[in-house]
């Protein structure tokens, strides 16, 4: 039987694979793919041997620096990045949780100054599994299950 791709292949660009299904739209939000002009295709609830179900995003003609793509590690810690050139995978990378999280996560503390004024949020990662991060301003810890993308 002929194998069929659920999400069509791209000639050049980046494939982000092994995204948890619940994190797909957060990944789109963090990487601002909704504002991206080139072709972006995604699939959700796809079969996965390792995860049961997974999501995948394919971004044409867009390549990511480590610092940029590591932002998604907070919501998709096992995501894998494949760089595609002329339909071939030329590089495989695994996302890594950054030491600092700046600007894209909301502090869970409603009384934090960052939720009252136009302040860029800053967190220091203090634990990786499960993720725990300390707000630079209010010093409260945001736990993995409390992470909300701005």
């Amino acid at each position: 039987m002929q194998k069929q791709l659920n999400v069509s292949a791209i000639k050049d660009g980046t494939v982000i694979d092994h995204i948890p299904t619940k994190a797909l739209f957060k990944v789109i939000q963090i990487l601002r793919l909704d504002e991206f002009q080139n072709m972006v295709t995604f699939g959700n609830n796809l079969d996965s041997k390792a995860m049961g179900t997974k999501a995948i995003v394919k971004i044409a003609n867009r390549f990511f620096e480590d610092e940029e793509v590591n932002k998604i590690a907070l919501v998709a810690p096992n995501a894998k990045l494949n760089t595609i050139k002329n339909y071939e995978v030329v590089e495989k990378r695994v996302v890594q949780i950054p030491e600092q999280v700046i600007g894209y996560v909301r502090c869970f503390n409603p009384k934090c100054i960052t939720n009252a004024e136009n302040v860029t949020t800053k967190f220091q990662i203090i634990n990786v599994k499960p993720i725990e991060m300390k707000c630079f301003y209010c010093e409260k810890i945001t736990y993995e299950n409390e992470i909300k993308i701005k």
Partner: protein
Amino acid sequence: MSQKSLISITDFSKEEYLKIMELSAKFEANPNQSLLKGKVIATLFFEPSTRTRLSFETAINRLGGKIIGFSDSNSSSVSKGESLHDTIRMVSNYADMIIMRHPLEGSARYAAEVSDVPVINAGDGANQHPSQTLLDMYSIMKTQNRLDDINLFMVGDLKYGRTVHSLLMAMSQFKNPIFNFVAPPELAMPDEYKLFLSQKGICYFEHLEFNDIINQADIIYMTRVQKERFIAPADLTKLANCCPCGPTIG
């Protein structure tokens, strides 16, 4: 000191605490000095305060400085919707230092970030009150003649009381502290501070009452219920009779 602003007690090392204790003793012996002569100090109290504001203003006067500021955010442009950012930027052009109390947590760190002059945190919500902690440590040092090996009982509102959090962080830097937390479950010490102690291998115990164990204490640190931190008044009423220091004690 290596830093300009005083924001969080965690910004200090043990050596710096001890240096401040030593300097404090000198100031106590000779309080009237002219170290701030010609300086303008802004005291910005966005939240009511009696002791902290008067302590700072007394200190500024004794050191020869001049004071500008407000003791109520309703009498400032904040009531017209001015942002903290704009208030701090404006005041930092007038004053040589800003002393600020604000109800939002992290506000002092943010103020220090946008200010051109040093900022002293006189309390930011339930987060930090470093000058109170330095005073508490000085009192412990004076009465016990040491900061190591202290059995410290913290009693009352350990959930919202910022001074207990700051004092816990500071005392954990000294040798063999033992912490005893006495509070109803609703006002118990937050998990993050208990985790902090566990990770440092520091002993702590939790109690609902302290009548049988009070004689073990070197220091008993009593706090009132922080009624200004309660969002639902019903929660406060429920706790009024179960805490050794009720909500009406100042």
